[in-house]
């Protein structure tokens, strides 16, 4: 039984190890980071089979909950750790060739801090501990967005920081209210006691928490930082941000609403917000000229789709939402990583400058097309099965409201496929003007290929994947009890 705490300690430790040894290890610090990530992947994979039977509860520093901090690793924790560590590893491989310069070690330290923050948020069983990991995640992503030091990066980082701080203020108020009312910070204990709190206080806690975490999870009115941050961050970081950081924040909200607050009446409101997010994301992306801004807005759209799936108040819905998260992580990472080298090779963000690039960068163009097709939900790719599951879950509820929402979701997909196809047509244009451009190096392509394998071969292992995501869905829907923790 490997101890889940390793998932947090290893990256944290290596992050500081790198900054210590940076002076004499110079550029080879990245291999340390690689080791840490491989360890993480290995641990999370070993965790999964055990966790599916019964959830593991890790007590830290001897103090038993509800006073002490504990890690509560259910199927959701394990599945997300795999998602985070696997995606993190591949993006790390990509960054080897993408991030040059002598201040590399700073990048890898922050990279590992981001991984620590994500793992922490998903695994922790304590509300304040969740806030602390949220802050680690937020701060490292502020710096990483402004890492390239250009004007756009810094402007986006400052905006992201200010909005993020407002979010963390709101979350902290929620934590304070929770402690004031329930007298405990442990999630399981809170779940038991939450029923007894008087309704108006419960409402305040709920709203503070959802709005605070919503800023990070990019729900419609709160996500104005995302287009700037994801489009001006280095592409590997935008891949991580869009890949799993916003999904982690989203799953925390969903876990709180379902298993801790058990306030399933508000799901109707959440699905409405989700569809608005989707439509705003898709329509805003429709007329973008900068490729990374298109992908950023498309992430908003996809988050809307995932939240819509998860707010259907059924295990099928959450299961479909999780499959869509896996699909979005894989295909959006491919798109951002390919866009990264498109920008590096052609030196411009404008889509119109990539005319006929498919001739010079055939492999990355091919992967770009696969990423788009899977994101749109075109059959044989994994995206089709997740989108199909979402629509089945939505229409199974049979309510007219959901049928209308499904048609809006399909409208969103139509808009999405139009603007993505426009990009593909420009890339495969016959009379290409792009001449002195050479293909992306091998290692990044290998990382992108790994993501592509997930989407391409997804349907072969479909029963296994739905098995694990089904476990996660049933865990989220069931109300957390104190008994589980002991």
């Amino acid at each position: 039984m490997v101890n889940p705490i390793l998932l947090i300690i290893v990256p944290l430790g290596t992050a500081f190890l790198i900054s210590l040894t940076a002076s004499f290890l110079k550029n080879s610090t990245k291999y340390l980071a690689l080791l840490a990530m491989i360890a993480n992947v290995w641990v999370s994979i070993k965790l999964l089979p055990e966790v599916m039977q019964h959830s593991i509860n890790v007590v830290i520093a001897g103090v038993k909950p509800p006073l002490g901090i504990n890690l509560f690793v259910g199927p959701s924790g394990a599945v997300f750790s795999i998602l985070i560590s696997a995606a993190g590893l591949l993006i790390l491989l990509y960054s080897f060739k993408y991030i040059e310069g002598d201040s590399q070690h700073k990048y890898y330290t922050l990279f590992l801090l981001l991984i620590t923050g994500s793992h922490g948020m998903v695994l922790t069983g304590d509300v304040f501990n969740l806030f602390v990991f949220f802050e680690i995640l937020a701060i490292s992503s502020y710096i990483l967005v402004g890492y390239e030091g250009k004007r756009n990066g810094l402007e986006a980082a400052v905006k992201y920081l200010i909005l993020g701080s407002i979010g963390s203020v709101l979350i902290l108020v929620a934590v304070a209210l929770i402690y004031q009312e329930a007298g405990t910070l442990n999630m399981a204990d809170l779940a038991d006691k939450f029923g007894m709190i008087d309704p108006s206080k419960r409402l305040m806690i709920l709203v503070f928490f959802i709005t605070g975490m919503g800023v990070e999870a990019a729900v419609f009115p709160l996500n104005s930082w995302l287009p700037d941050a994801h489009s001006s961050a280095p592409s590997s970081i935008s891949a991580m941000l869009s890949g799993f950081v916003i999904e982690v924040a989203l799953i925390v909200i969903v876990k709180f609403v379902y298993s801790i607050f058990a306030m399933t009446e508000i799901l109707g409101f959440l699905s409405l917000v989700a569809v608005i997010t989707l439509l705003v994301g898709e329509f805003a992306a429709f007329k973008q000229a900068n490729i990374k801004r298109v992908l950023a807005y498309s992430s908003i759209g996809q988050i809307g789709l995932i939240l819509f799936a998860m707010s259907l108040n059924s295990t099928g819905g959450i299961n479909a939402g999780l499959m869509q998260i896996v699909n979005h992580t894989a295909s959006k990472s491919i798109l951002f990583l390919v866009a990264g080298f498109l920008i590096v090779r052609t030196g411009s963000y404008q889509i119109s400058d990539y005319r006929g690039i498919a001739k010079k960068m055939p492999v990355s163009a091919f992967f770009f097309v696969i990423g788009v097709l899977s994101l749109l939900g075109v059959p044989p790719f994994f995206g089709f099965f997740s989108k199909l599951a979402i629509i089945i879950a939505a229409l199974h509820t049979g309510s007219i409201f959901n049928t209308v929402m499904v048609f809006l979701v399909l409208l969103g997909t139509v808009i999405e496929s139009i603007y993505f196809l426009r990009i593909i047509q420009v890339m495969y244009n016959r009379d290409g003007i792009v001449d002195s451009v050479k293909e992306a190096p091998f290692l990044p392509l290998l990382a992108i290929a790994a993501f592509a394998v997930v989407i391409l071969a997804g349907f072969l292992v479909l029963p296994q994947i739905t098995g694990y995501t089904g476990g996660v869905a049933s865990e989220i829907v069931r109300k957390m009890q104190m008994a589980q923790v002991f």
Partner: protein
Amino acid sequence: MSIVLNLLSIALAGVVLNVLFSKSKIVQKYVSLLIFAGLTYFSFVMYSQVGEHFDFPFQIAGQSIGFTITWLNYYFGIMITGITLLTVIFSLKYMEGKDGSTHYYTVLSLKTFGMLGVIFSSDLITFFVFWEIMSWSTFGLMSTGGKDAPKSAFKYFVFAITASMILMAGVVLSYSLFGSFDFAVIHDKIGSLSLPMTGFLLSIFIVSFSVESAVFPVHSWLPDGYSNTFTTFTAYLSGISTRIGIYGIILFLFGIFGIQTVDKLSIIGKINFRYVFGVFAALTMVVPTFTALYQHDAKKLIAWHSVGQGGYMLIGLASGSALGIAGGMFHVLNHMAYVVLIVFAIAAVEHRTGTTNLNKLGGLIKKMPVSYLALLFGIIGLAGLPPMNGFVSKWFIYRALILGGYPFLAIAAVIGTLGTILSVYKLIHNMFLGQLPERYNNVKEVGFSMQLPMWILMIVVLGLGIFPGAAMGLIAKIQVALGLTAVPYSLHGIQTASGQLNMLVVSAVFIGGIFVTWIIYLLGSRRKHVSQYNNYAAGNFLDKKVAYNFNYEFYAAMEHVIDPYRKKIIQRTEQGIAGLTDAVSEYIRRIYTGMINTYGIYVITAFIVTIIILKELI
């Protein structure tokens, strides 16, 4: 191993091999020839295994998915593989000089793979999966081969993706209503559904298939899409690609929903569903045929006609009588035969003269007699005149409409036919008749590999015209399988109580008439052949410099009559919708103003709004 899997694996192998052998053109050509020959062989041999079902090893959403062979998809299977084989034979020489031939053969086999999958699927999921593959490969097919091919392919794509999204909604809606994707299960449970829901579900499917088969309001993508790509693709697309939409309509209208349920559906009490569908089909017949008059590019003219002929098939199906449905289905085969023949002739002319612009061609009959003959057979078929096959299916449809009591649909069919005759003559006159311009003096007839498909199709067009029974047997089996009454047919026509059509007698009498005229013709003395410049020119003389044809604005008077009625409503609505989406996205884009203060205000307003709303909910 089910024969359907052989078909699909061969088609898929076609895709893979073409990509592998992309470097050497020779191997690529003959590999795809072999592939499609194999496909045709298997699809013909399949009749012995009709009714056999095959399930996929894995399941989706707990439902088993697979293939089944019925008479309907056997009929369409032969058509698909047959036409693809002829197109590949024709394009062996046609694609020689052109670049992008790897893409050409790969996407062709991928599209065949998609189409075969669509028609052999036995449940909604496989149907939808292969439908998507087909519509994406059609987009791939259409985006090469001409300078503004990508633009028109993009237009097709917008229509296609909307159609497949509607189809997806329909697939999942029927799954949630009936609990299964399988056609047979849905067919049994369809009765249990309430009338408005059946109507809603049926209209979802019919709308998404009408987009693919270019029914009137949603047809504007077809003319540009089909004519801007390689001419061989124009033949292939207008021959069979749009007819998969018709297959979908037949399958859902008669196979799954069944004629009884469809007849129960009625809008505002009196007008039944089929009549509304018939009106759209009637518009599809009339409007495109008269737009074809205006075209001065041969491929565009034929593309407009394939939209118009689609209307004939649909109106046959909409008439609902056994004769009408048989006519509609038979017209799919006939249309495929003669339209592909016509476009092959156009491709031959383009291959030799390099242009399909009707204003620049003329007099090619002296240099390319075989292509002329092919085009002649094709246009007689398209216009629907006897001895050719077009006449037989049009006769069925006319009789069904008249005896079924749909006078106004019959009127539309008549108007459509006359429009076809006019524009079809313009095609053959501007290309092959009239004065031969100087620059085409050394044009030669196309090689054997391009003539062979033309000869085969000529035989099919004439053969089916004189002996329609050959195909009527299969159609009768389909009708019985779909639960409709079959049409009493015989080898040379049909014998119903209220009237009989005997194509053999009609053709025999026609030959007799020609023989008599030939004898009268021989009475006169020998004919003297003269050159084209030895012509009456009101006392003036004609020579190379002044050779002129009456090609430009061939039907100026008719255009003069029709112009006030051409309001281009379709184009205006399309631009309206495109403009609307642009405006909306421009407006929504502006939400992200870039000012951090406004972002903060967004957060707080969201906070307050959430409180207000959640106060009610909890």
